[in-house]
């Protein structure tokens, strides 16, 4: 059974200038959104207290807000949590009360509420997670860059890393534009996307290296085109399957994994696109040609198992 003709000859590289402009626009757009809107940080990063409450009947949020406000919690944030009967109440850190007292007070105020989960994150902890998160992304990018430079060629490494910066930023841009809550699990998803986008990129690069070796008379554009076309069915297949699996998570996995699943789905789409276009096109832009790959190829043959 075949989904795609195995003789696709889509001129990917021919469209690369348009693709670059498109990407640059998306990139800029995401950046602007991040600066202007900022990210809707979840509890893990902001600190404070969060109550997950279940009601027997669907509840009116305004009523909940009023009840809380009467009790003195004016800045409480009330939002839906999966269904009409589940509510998430967020409070900033209250000075004098312990978690016990606060929980008791909140529960007393909201009648019919059944407590599912309480979380308290101290302000220091939240800030640390933000800085650790940023550090993690940078370290991951660095590690990957070194690895690719070792396995392939430095031009590949640089283009790969640029495409890898492009992906998370676009994801963050989407989160920022729609003000979707960004919590620690979503951050994990962003990092995972970096890894998977790299997967695709490496598969393409591998084929490029092989083709440069096999085919004597062709321009870099043609080689890259060929490589992308050849790996197209695999790329779409894997991305598609992974997307379906994550969609399952999105639908059935519950509210806690929502941020994660969403980030991953966006990431897979963007990642596939970036592997095809950005990585390849940038390599050409940096002047990649045959000679660069011959030496590397020789190393590879020697290291076959």
């Amino acid at each position, binding site marked *: *059974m*075949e989904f795609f003709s195995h003789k696709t000859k889509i001129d990917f590289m021919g469209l690369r200038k348009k693709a670059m402009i498109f990407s640059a626009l998306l990139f800029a757009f995401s950046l602007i959104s991040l600066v202007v809107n900022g990210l809707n940080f979840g509890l893990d990063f902001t600190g404070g207290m969060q109550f997950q409450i*279940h009601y027997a009947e669907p509840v009116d949020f305004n009523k909940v807000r009023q009840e809380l406000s009467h009790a003195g919690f004016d800045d409480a944030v009330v939002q839906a949590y999966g269904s009409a009967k589940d509510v998430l109440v967020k409070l900033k*850190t209250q*000075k004098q009360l312990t*978690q*016990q007292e606060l*929980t008791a007070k909140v529960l007393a105020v909201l009648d019919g509420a*059944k*407590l*599912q*989960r*309480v*979380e*308290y*994150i*101290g*302000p*220091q*902890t939240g800030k640390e*997670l933000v800085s*650790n998160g940023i550090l*993690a992304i940078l*370290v*991951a990018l660095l*590690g*990957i860059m070194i*690895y690719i430079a070792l*396995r392939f060629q430095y031009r590949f490494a640089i283009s790969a890393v640029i495409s890898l910066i492009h992906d998370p930023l676009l994801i963050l841009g989407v989160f920022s534009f729609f003000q979707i809550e960004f919590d*620690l*699990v979503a951050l*994990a998803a962003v*990092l*995972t996307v970096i*890894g*998977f986008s*790299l*997967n695709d990129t*490496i*598969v393409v690069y*591998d084929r490029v290296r092989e083709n440069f070796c096999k085919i004597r008379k062709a321009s870099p554009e043609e080689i890259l085109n060929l490589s992308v076309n050849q790996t197209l069915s*695999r790329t779409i297949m*894997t991305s598609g*399957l*992974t*997307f*379906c*699996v*994550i969609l*399952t998570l999105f639908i*059935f*996995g*519950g509210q*806690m*994994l929502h941020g*994660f699943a969403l980030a*991953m789905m966006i990431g897979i789409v963007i990642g596939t696109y970036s592997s095809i276009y950005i990585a390849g096109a940038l390599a050409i832009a940096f002047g990649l040609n045959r000679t660069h790959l011959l030496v590397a190829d020789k190393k*590879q043959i020697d290291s*076959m*198992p």
Partner: protein
Amino acid sequence: MNNYPLWKNLLLVGALLIGIIYAAPNLFGNDPSVQISATSTETQIPVATATQVVDKVKQLLQDAGVSYLGVEQAQEKLLIRFSDTDIQLRARDLIKVGLGENYTVALNLASRTPKWLTALGAYPMKLGLDLCGGVNFLLEVDTSALIKAREDGDVRSIGDTLRQAGIRYSGIERLRPQGLVIKFRDVDSLERANGELSHHFPNRADYLFAKIDSGGEYKLQLVLSEVAIFKVADYALEQTKNTLSNRVNELGVSEAIVQRQGINRISVDLPGIQDTARAKEIIGKTATLKFQMADVEHDAESAAISGDVPLGTKLYNYEGRRVLLKEQVILQGNAITYAAASNSQDGRPAVNVHLGGGGEGVFHRVTAENVGKPMAVVYVETKPEQHLVDGKLVTTNRLVEKVISVATIQSALGNNFEITGLGTQKYARDLALLLRSGALLAPVVVAAEVTVGPSAGKANINKGVLSVVIGFIIVVSFMMLYYRFFGAIANMALLLNLIFIVAILSLLEATLTLPGIAGIVLTLGTAVDSNVLIYERIREELRHGVSPQTSIFSGYERVFTTIVDSNVSNLIVAVVLFSLGSGAIKGFAVTLAIGLLTSMLTAIVFTRAVVNLVYGKRNVKKLSIGV
């Protein structure tokens, strides 16, 4: 060509069996049960009395009409299984009241794994809090208080050293944020002091010395080096972790997890606990204990009135009167390994104390020198307060000290002694409890706290399992449709993958969290990737007219390095995620990493073995690979 030698095939079958054995325990469920153990860490339930206890418990349950599934004895603990949580709770209360103080009665979820599996070391996976409900505390150790205590000790030590050498100094002061400065009247003393301390001060290796000779002031500055600070923090964290572990045992929570996290944090997981108030009370008790001598040479009341407290002492209140205590701490609370209420020889309430944590030498010496004089036990609690400073929320720790006991030293105290002169039995019991919990070395603040209700936990497990099952079905169906027989082989590899992941998680005693399950779901999608790579390559070769056998061979050979390359990049990400620290993310990183490794194994080695078995030495015209 496409043939695996017999030993290789046998090896794979062996690996498969091992995988199944170690994954199997997860299929059996759990029984709500009650676990009984002896209260003190020192006395175990001896075998002789164990049967007595068993009989007593059985009697208690029978009398109340509470039915149980079975009684087991393992090591020094007794385990009683029940059919549901309501009965479990009733039984717990009954047994607790019936057995009394000397036994800890805890709620437990005992797995039903058959004995032959546990004998092999196969246990079910631990479930994280968001899957089984319970409480998690993230505690931050205030190492600055410790450093202060350390410097206080060193101040005295410096004073002693200088006095013995006959070097005069005009004062020793503390620096902010940390460090000591010794003032001298002339440069000669400064030089001599520098030399003396550099050679004879016991803790000289931990400090950086700096001479300051300017503006008529002669000062010697001592600042703790980075290494020393790190050692202090490290020691504090380790001690605190041990103390908390003891306290957690005191609570009677089995399967609690106390772990260090980062440089100054400790994470405490208490699964199954719903009474967070009590848990917090015992765990979160941010207190330290210290033993200090009372000052009998000066009158406490007059000092209080005049406001003139003698050097080296401090004023406290105790039972309505004033008392002066010498500042020197002669014993830290964490040296206590055992404490129990008892009756002293004259029949009055007392507390029996055993020491073991270190510092007994000094304690023995000081008490020997002070027989007949009163010694106080001071309870120090840290109350965190938050206020706004320049618009930012700042947490400061306020120290509250309370004298809980002043007793006369009867003789030189060694490893084993009694605190007598206590008022009532209840007072003795409370004191024993406090002493036993092992006072913390440094103040501890709750940095984060999560409470998950049991129903939320169950809901999460169901969601997780559902996602895995549906994801599995989607992938399996697709692979069958697209790659036919080879697809079936890939599906078998996928199943093996799942078995291996579960087995490895169980073996590692890693904790499964909800993000961890997400990691497993993700692995389902990516595990097929390796297979897809191989199969697409085989298809390509076939299209170019290469023979089936050779196609299979080059498919596997050529793709090997690509698979390794792409998986390594994901592993780098998994490692980075693991170091990010928080428990839930760690769970995800672990399942991701394990999933990657097992998928590499199953895709490359296992499927190849099966393909070889099926197509191996035969003359094949066509491959059922969907082309």
